[in-house]
């Protein structure tokens, strides 16, 4: 049994004049200890997908579909059960740690009150555990850091504190939404190395949301590429460069400038990323796709198997790609 099963997840959000569908049936599964990447541009629905998993959606949004955690239907959890699910079993790390922590409370209060409230620990036990997890994420002098305010910490250090806060509970699943995007490249590298190490040591599974294909490929086992509220390709991370078949995945890989050599011209994707809200009859990528046919403009493609993995493209079996 998978740790997490997401089946046919749809999400409707308020828009001027009614409700609009922004996620159009997302399916994914996360095995125990596995690292699953969700990659896409603005509006693809990658963040909303993990927020749906965490149950962190605004009340006005309507979520449908099945969400099962160790086989248990999340939608039918009691409020006590749901609180335990959200606090102790699933942990979330956000892009901007400064927006996720109260700026006028000390780091120690943030860490300690969390477990005192949710797990009923004594303050001294919580404090010892806080020191232990800060040490584990590489924060030097953790005793002193407990008395620091968030503003006194650099972005990288604060993100380590946020990661430490998730470790207080030994969660089974870490949801990481662009956790290193706001950090410097050298800090990103160090923080990702930390997440990777903690994950492996504890057998913790991860859903990792990022716009950075290369980063996802480096730290995940499986990658889902999202576009306009749908998963358009799912493949093993180590096959991203050699075997990806969706024109959007290939276009994303091609659009990035290369570190190793200068190209005369980048292969930019025309137009701009669509969101799930846009009313496009056929394939949502069709207006930007080089390989578009009439059928692409009228029929939404379903997932098909190509080269051993799932691709949402009418021409998946037909277009031949040179290896990148």
């Amino acid at each position, binding site marked *: 049994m998978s740790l997490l099963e997401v089946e046919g997840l749809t999400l409707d959000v308020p828009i001027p004049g009614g409700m609009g569908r922004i996620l159009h049936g997302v399916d994914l599964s996360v095995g125990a200890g596995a690292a699953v990447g969700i990659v896409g*541009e*603005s509006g693809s629905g990658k963040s909303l997908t993990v927020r749906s998993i965490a149950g962190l959606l605004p009340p006005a949004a309507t979520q449908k579909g099945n969400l099962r955690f160790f086989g248990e239907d999340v939608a039918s959890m009691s409020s006590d059960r749901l609180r335990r699910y959200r606090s102790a079993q699933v942990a979330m790390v956000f892009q901007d740690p400064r927006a996720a922590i109260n700026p006028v409370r000390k780091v120690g209060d943030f860490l300690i009150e969390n477990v005192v409230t949710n797990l009923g620990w004594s303050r001294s036990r919580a404090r010892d555990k806080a020191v232990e997890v800060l040490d584990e994420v*590489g924060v030097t002098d953790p005793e002193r850091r407990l008395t620091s305010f968030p503003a006194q910490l*650099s*972005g990288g250090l604060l993100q380590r504190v946020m990661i430490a806060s998730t470790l207080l509970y030994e969660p089974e699943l870490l949801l990481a939404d662009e956790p290193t995007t706001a950090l*410097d*490249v*050298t*800090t*990103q*590298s*160090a923080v*990702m*190395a*930390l997440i*990777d190490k903690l994950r492996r040591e504890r057998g913790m599974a991860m859903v990792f949301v990022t*716009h*950075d*294909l*290369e*980063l996802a*490929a*480096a*730290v995940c086992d499986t990658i889902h590429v999202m576009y306009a509220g749908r998963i358009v390709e799912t493949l093993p991370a180590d096959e991203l*460069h050699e075997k990806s078949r969706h024109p959007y995945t290939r*276009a*994303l890989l091609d*659009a*990035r*400038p*290369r*570190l*190793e*050599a*200068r*190209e005369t*011209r*980048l*292969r*930019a*994707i*025309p137009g*701009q*990323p669509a969101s799930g809200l846009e009313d496009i009859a056929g394939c949502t990528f069709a207006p*930007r796709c080089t390989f578009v046919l009439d059928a692409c403009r009228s029929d939404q493609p379903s997932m098909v198997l190509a080269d051993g993995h799932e691709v949402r493209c009418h021409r998946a079996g037909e277009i031949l790609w040179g290896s990148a």
Partner: protein
Amino acid sequence: MGVGVSAPLIVTQRLRKVYGDLVAVDDVSFELPHGGSLGIVGESGSGKTTLAKMLVGLERPTSGSIEIAGENCSLPAKSARQRWRRARSLQIVFQDPYSSLDPRQTVGDALREALRVSGVDRNLLDARARALIDLVGMPERVLTSRPSVLSGGQRQRTAIARALATEPRGLILDESVAALDVSIQAQILNLLADIREQTGVAYVFVSHDLAVVRHVTDEVMVMRGGQIVERGETGSVLDNPRHEYTQLLRASVPRPGWVPGSGESR
């Protein structure tokens, strides 16, 4: 002004900026030729943005000198006339296209205002605004739009068009493509290459992204803690980084086969 074409567009000498106890920029000297493209690479606190702001007169150097198109620009402009002249030498495009445009001003108004203050005849404002919007690859109807209806990429195109309105000899691009989606980033990088080819404008490209810097610059300076730690031709600095810090920066870029933490010193 009698500036020879062979004289560099920007010359800084021993430029230094101190805030209290913090030395933000420490002894930075460089030259940028007309039509050249210089990358300034560094992380938070490296001093790269402070340096960019001093170049366009948004920060006043503590010591050292800045000469732009033959004019001493080390001190703030003394008159409106001097400020306009400097605005025709150098313009800046910021990272965040959401905060760098006036939400109440249409794209056309923003461009016409920039054109007017740079001395363009009133009768020509509309035509020049249309030419600018065309140069940055947007349809003319965008001229009547306010920023709120534009995408991030369109806003950044607008900011570039506005910067080009004064026909500057140099553009300072401070992380100008960092906030854009990958597919849009490629469009803007191609646009910047086209504009440089068409107008001969020089770029100072401030960025943390080594692949982007490789794509748009000829020379690069790597900054850390306010100092230049390495400089040279972009390709050779990135292919054979000599300074330990440049090596760490390069090792930190995710790529096929990359392991996070590689090159990490701690």
